[in-house]
C-alpha cells in the first residue's frame, strides 16, 4: 500500500490490524487450551506473550509513516473544539485577525494587480520600449530621454533586422457622423505592425495592413469595443460603414478587443496617413512611442547593438538633428506613475494594524498558556514530549491564524472593488486588480506568519521553564509571563503611536493646505476642454473666428458672468513651460529659467479672480499686428526684474524671436496644486493674449484650448446650456473633460485626503486594539496578583494604594511603548515627508495631541482592572492561596 492509501484508508487499516491481532490471540489461546490450560488463564497468557495488543497496535501505526498526520489531525480537532468552547476569545481573536489580514490582503491585491500583473499583451516579458536618448546633453525639463521623431522611427524600423517595431502617438479628436451626438474621444495613431506585435487581434473586421499605413491611403480606422457598443450597439454592420473623425470621413475596418485599453483610445488610425509637417522633421519629437519585440533567436543586446549602428549612421547623415542622439531599448514596464509609493505606504500601515492584532492575540494565548501550566506540566509528566507539546501549541495558533485568514480573504474579496473605486483620480490598471493565486498564497502566508508570531510566545516561555517547577509552583507562575506581557503592551502602544502620529501629521498637513489661498477664486467657475469644428481648425483665420464666436455665444447663456479661453487651466494637468530672458543675447538652452506660459483671452482675470497687482491686463486692442504684450505674475516679476518696476520692460521667450513688452503684474496662482506648488520646479508664470499667437501656432493651440466660465449660479447647471450654445454651425464642436475649479482644487488634495482618511481609520483601529490589549493584559496581571493585594490590604493598604500599584505597572509599560513608538514615528514621519506633497515634520502640538489621544484611553483601560483589584476582599483573597 502506498503512503497515500495508508492515509486515506485509515479506518480500513485499523480494522484489519484489529482482526489480525485478534486472530493471533485466538489461535494462541486455542493452542494453550488444547494443552490443558484453563481458557481464562490461556487468554491471559496469550495477551502477555504478545505484549499488550494496544501497545502492539501503536507500534504498528508508527511504522505506517502517517503518524504525524494523525497527530496533526488530532491537534486540529482539539484546537477547533477549544475555539468552540471559548466563543468570547474566538470571536475577538478571529474578528481582529480577519480585519487585520483582510485589510492587508486588500492592499496586496491592489499592489499585485497594479504593480505586478503582466501587461495584457502576448508574451509581455519580451516586449521592449524604445526611446531616443541624448548623450552628453541633459535637458533639465525632459532629462535625456525623448519620444521618437517619425523619420527616426521609420529608419530604425527599416534598418534594425533583429526587432519588430511598432509606433503609436496620442491623437484625440471629435467623432461625428452617424446618428449619435458628436463626441470627443481619445485616439491613437498607430503603425500597421503595432497590433500584431502586441498579439492584439481585432474581434471584428481586420487590423491595419502596410498599405493603410502610408500618406494618401484611404482613411480607415479601428474603433474600440466601447465605442462600437456606444455608437453602433455592437452591430457587425459597423464594419465597412463610415464615421467622421476630425472632419474626415473614415471607413471602419475593425473593432479592437475590450482588453485593449492603451491610452484609453477609442479610435485607432494609421500613423502613416498623418502628413502634418512635424511628421517629416527629425528635430521634433511629437510624442511618438515605440514598442518592439526581438525576432526569434535574437537578444536584447544584439538589438541594442543594431540600434547603435543605425544611430551612428543617422548622426553622420543628419548632424544637425541627430548628433549625439542614440536609441535605447529596455524591457517594457506598465506605466503607473507614483501610485506605487502610496500603495506600499498603505500596505505598511495596514501591516502595523495586523501586527497589533497579532500581539493582542499573543497576549491572550500567553495568558491562557500560563493558566494551563499545570495541565501542560501534567501531560509532560505523563510522557508527552516537549516537541509534541510545542507542536500542539503551534497547531492551535495555525488553526486560529488560518481561520482568521480565511475570513480576511472573504472580507478582502468583498472590499477590494469598493476600495479601488474610492481611489482618488482613478487607480491606474485597476482592471487588473483581482483575487488570483498570488493573493491566495499571500493570504495563507500572512496567516501562517501571524500564527507563528502569536503562537511562539507560549512555546518559547514553556520550553524555558522546568515542568516540575510548574507542578510545584501552582498559582504563582505569573512572574514568568510578566516580562513578556509588558513587552506586548509596549509593542502595541508603540505600533499604535506610529499610526497615530502619521494620521496626525496628515491631518495637520490638510488643515494647513486648506487654509492656503490657491491664488484663484475657485467658487462658481466651470472649466472645460473644447474642440472647435474640425473643419476650421486647420485654417488660422477661420479658427480665430470660430473661437470669437464661442466667446460671444457663451455670453448669451443666462448665468454666465465672464468667459475666457485658456490653454493651461490651473490645477489641471495642463503644462506649457517656456524658457525666458530679459536681455539679449539669448542664453544657452540649458541655462534659461523656465516659466509657465498661459495663452488667454482678456476676461481671464475676471473669470479666475486673480488680483491685478500693477499695470493692466489684456483687452480687445491687443491683437495680431499691435505691440506684443505679456503679463507676468508676482513671482516672475521678482525673479526677472527684482525690485525694479517691470512695467514697460522687455521679455524674450522661446515662443517668439521678438521680445514681448510687460504691461502688468498679477497674483501668483498655485498652478501645480495647493500642496505641490511650493515644491514645484517652475513657479514663474506669464500670460500672453491668444489673439497674438502667430498663425502657424493657431492649429496646435486650438487643439489644446479650454474655456473657463465664471457663473452667477451653480456652475454645473450651465454645462448643458453651454454645450448646446457652443455646438457651432455644423454641430460638431464639443465640450469635454468638464470640471468646476472647485473640483480641480479639491482633486489636488485628494491624495492627502484619501491617505488621511485611511490612516485615521487605521490609527483608530490600532488605538482600539491597543486599548483592548492593555485592558486584557492588566486585567490578567491584576487578577494574578489578587492574593498579594489581599495580603497588602490585610496589612493596612487602602484601595487607593492598590490602584496606584496597578497603575504604576501599567504606566511603566505604556511609557516603554511611547519611547519605542517615538522612534518608529520619527521614521514614519520621514517616509511620509518623502512620499506625500505638503507634509512637514510633526509640530509639537500634533505630537502632544496624538500622545494624549493614545495615553489617556490606555490609562483608562488599565484603570478598570485596577479599580476591580482595589475592591478585593482581604479574606477571600487570602483563602484563594
Amino acid at each position, binding site marked *: *500500500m502506498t503512503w497515500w492509501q*495508508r492515509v486515506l484508508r485509515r479506518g480500513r487499516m485499523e480494522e*484489519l490490524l484489529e*482482526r*489480525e*491481532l485478534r*486472530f*493471533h490471540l*485466538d*489461535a*494462541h489461546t486455542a493452542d494453550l487450551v488444547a494443552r490443558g490450560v484453563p481458557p481464562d488463564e490461556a487468554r491471559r497468557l496469550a495477551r*502477555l*506473550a*504478545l*505484549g*499488550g495488543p494496544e*501497545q*502492539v497496535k501503536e*507500534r*504498528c501505526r*508508527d*511504522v*505506517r*509513516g502517517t503518524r504525524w498526520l494523525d497527530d496533526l489531525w488530532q491537534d486540529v480537532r482539539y484546537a477547533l473544539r477549544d475555539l468552540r468552547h471559548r466563543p468570547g476569545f474566538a470571536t475577538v481573536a478571529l474578528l481582529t485577525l480577519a480585519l487585520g489580514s483582510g485589510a492587508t490582503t486588500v492592499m496586496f491585491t491592489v499592489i499585485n494587480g497594479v504593480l505586478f500583473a503582466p501587461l495584457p499583451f502576448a508574451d509581455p516579458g519580451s516586449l521592449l520600449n524604445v526611446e531616443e536618448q541624448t548623450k552628453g546633453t541633459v535637458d533639465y525639463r525632459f532629462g535625456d530621454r525623448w519620444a521618437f521623431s517619425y523619420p527616426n522611427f521609420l529608419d530604425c524600423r527599416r534598418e534594425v533586422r533583429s526587432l519588430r517595431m511598432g509606433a503609436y502617438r496620442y491623437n484625440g479628436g471629435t467623432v461625428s457622423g452617424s446618428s449619435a451626438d458628436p463626441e470627443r474621444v481619445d485616439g491613437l495613431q498607430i503603425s500597421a505592425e503595432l497590433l500584431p506585435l502586441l498579439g492584439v487581434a481585432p474581434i471584428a473586421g481586420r487590423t491595419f495592413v502596410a498599405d493603410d499605413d502610408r500618406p494618401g491611403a484611404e482613411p480607415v480606422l479601428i474603433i474600440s469595443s466601447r465605442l462600437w457598443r456606444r455608437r453602433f450597439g455592437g452591430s457587425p454592420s459597423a464594419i465597412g460603414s463610415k464615421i467622421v473623425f476630425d472632419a474626415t470621413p473614415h471607413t471602419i475596418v475593425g473593432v479592437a478587443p475590450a482588453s485593449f485599453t492603451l491610452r484609453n483610445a477609442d479610435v485607432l488610425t494609421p500613423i502613416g496617413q498623418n502628413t502634418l509637417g512635424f511628421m517629416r522633421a527629425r528635430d521634433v519629437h511629437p510624442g511618438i512611442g515605440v514598442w518592439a519585440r526581438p525576432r526569434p533567436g535574437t537578444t536584447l543586446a544584439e538589438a541594442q547593438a543594431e540600434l547603435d549602428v543605425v544611430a551612428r549612421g543617422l548622426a553622420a547623415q543628419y548632424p544637425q538633428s541627430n548628433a549625439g542622439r542614440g536609441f535605447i531599448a529596455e524591457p517594457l514596464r506598465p506605466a503607473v506613475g507614483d501610485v506605487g509609493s502610496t500603495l506600499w505606504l498603505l500596505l505598511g500601515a495596514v501591516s502595523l494594524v495586523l501586527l497589533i492584532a497579532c500581539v493582542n492575540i499573543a497576549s491572550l494565548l500567553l495568558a491562557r498558556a500560563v493558566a494551563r501550566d499545570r495541565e501542560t506540566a501534567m501531560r509532560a509528566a505523563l510522557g508527552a514530549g516537549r516537541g509534541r507539546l510545542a507542536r500542539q501549541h503551534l497547531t492551535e495558533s495555525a488553526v486560529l491564524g488560518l481561520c482568521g485568514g480565511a475570513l480576511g480573504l472573504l472580507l478582502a474579496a468583498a472590499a477590494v472593488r469598493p476600495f479601488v473605486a474610492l481611489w482618488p483620480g482613478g487607480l491606474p490598471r485597476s482592471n487588473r486588480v483581482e483575487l488570483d493565486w498570488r493573493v491566495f498564497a499571500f493570504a495563507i502566508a500572512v496567516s501562517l506568519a501571524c500564527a507563528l508570531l502569536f503562537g511562539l510566545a507560549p512555546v518559547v516561555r514553556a520550553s524555558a521553564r522546568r515542568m516540575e517547577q510548574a507542578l510545584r509552583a501552582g498559582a504563582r507562575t505569573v512572574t514568568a509571563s510578566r516580562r513578556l506581557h509588558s513587552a506586548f503592551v509596549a509593542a502595541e502602544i508603540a505600533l499604535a503611536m506610529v499610526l497615530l502620529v502619521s494620521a496626525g501629521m496628515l491631518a495637520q498637513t490638510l488643515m494647513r493646505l486648506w487654509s492656503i489661498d490657491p491664488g484663484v477664486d475657485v467658487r462658481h467657475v466651470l472649466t472645460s476642454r473644447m474642440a472647435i469644428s474640425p473643419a476650421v481648425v486647420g485654417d488660422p483665420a477661420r479658427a480665430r473666428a470660430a473661437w470669437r464666436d464661442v466667446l460671444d455665444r457663451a455670453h448669451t447663456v443666462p448665468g454666465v458672468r465672464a468667459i475666457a479661453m485658456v490653454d493651461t487651466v490651473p490645477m489641471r494637468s495642463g503644462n506649457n513651460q517656456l524658457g525666458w530672458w530679459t536681455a539679449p543675447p539669448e542664453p544657452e538652452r540649458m541655462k534659461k529659467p523656465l516659466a509657465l506660459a498661459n495663452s488667454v483671452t482678456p476676461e481671464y482675470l475676471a473669470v479666475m479672480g486673480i488680483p491685478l497687482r500693477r499695470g493692466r491686463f489684456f483687452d480687445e486692442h491687443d491683437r495680431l499686428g499691435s505691440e506684443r504684450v505679456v503679463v507676468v505674475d508676482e513671482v516672475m516679476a521678482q525673479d526677472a526684474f527684482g525690485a525694479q518696476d517691470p512695467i514697460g520692460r522687455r521679455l524674450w521667450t522661446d515662443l517668439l524671436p521678438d521680445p514681448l513688452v510687460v504691461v502688468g503684474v498679477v497674483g501668483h496662482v498655485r498652478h501645480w496644486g495647493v500642496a505641490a506648488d511650493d515644491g514645484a520646479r517652475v513657479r514663474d508664470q506669464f500670460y500672453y493674449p491668444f489673439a497674438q499667437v502667430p498663425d502657424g501656432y493657431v492649429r496646435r493651440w486650438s487643439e489644446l484650448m479650454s474655456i473657463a466660465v465664471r457663473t452667477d449660479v451653480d456652475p454645473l447647471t450651465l454645462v448643458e446650456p453651454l454645450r448646446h450654445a457652443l455646438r457651432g454651425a455644423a454641430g460638431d464642436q464639443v465640450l469635454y473633460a468638464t470640471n468646476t475649479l472647485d473640483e480641480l482644487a479639491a482633486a489636488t488634495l485628494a491624495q492627502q485626503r484619501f491617505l488621511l482618511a485611511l490612516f485615521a481609520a487605521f490609527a483608530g483601529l490600532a488605538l482600539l486594539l491597543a486599548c483592548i490589549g492593555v485592558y486584557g493584559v492588566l486585567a490578567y496581571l491584576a487578577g494574578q496578583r489578587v492574593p498579594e493585594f489581599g495580603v497588602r490590604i490585610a496589612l493596612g493598604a487602602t484601595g487607593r494604594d492598590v490602584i496606584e500599584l496597578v497603575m504604576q505597572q501599567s504606566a511603566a509599560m505604556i511609557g516603554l511603548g511611547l519611547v519605542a513608538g517615538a522612534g518608529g514615528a520619527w521614521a514614519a514621519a520621514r517616509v511620509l515627508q518623502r512620499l506625500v506633497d505638503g507634509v512637514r515634520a510633526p509640530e509639537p502640538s500634533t505630537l502632544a495631541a496624538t500622545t494624549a489621544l493614545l495615553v489617556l484611553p490606555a490609562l483608562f483601560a488599565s484603570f478598570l482592572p485596577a479599580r476591580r483589584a482595589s475592591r478585593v476582599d482581604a479574606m477571600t483573597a487570602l483563602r484563594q492561596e
Partner: protein
Amino acid sequence: MAPETSAKSDLPQGTLDLLILKVIALGPVHGYAIAQRLQQVSGDVVQVPQGSLYPALHRLENRGLLAADWKDTETGREAKFYRLTRKGRSALHAETASWRRLSDAIAVILRMSEAGAE
C-alpha cells in the same frame, strides 16, 4: 515476562527481519504461525519478542518486501497470510549473504582470541 524465558539471549539487532523473511520464504504464512515457527526453530536459545513481530511485518510490507492476502486457515478462520515479493526474495539473499560474512568473520575472530589465550 515469564521467569523461565528470561535466561534466553535477546535477538541481535536487525536479525528479526532476516528471520521473518526466511520463515516466510518457505511459503505463505500468517503472523501467529511465524511466531510459532520462530519459537520452535530457535528453541531455547533465542528470545523472539512477539510484540515486535507485527510492527516488523508491517514495516516489511510497507517497504514492499512482503505482500499479504486474507485467506482461510485450515480451521476455517480468515487470517492475513504473508508472502515474499520479488524484492523481498532478493533482500533475503542479500541479507543472508551479509549475515554469513559477518558471522564467519566473528567466528574467525573468536577463534583467534582463544588461541591467543592458550
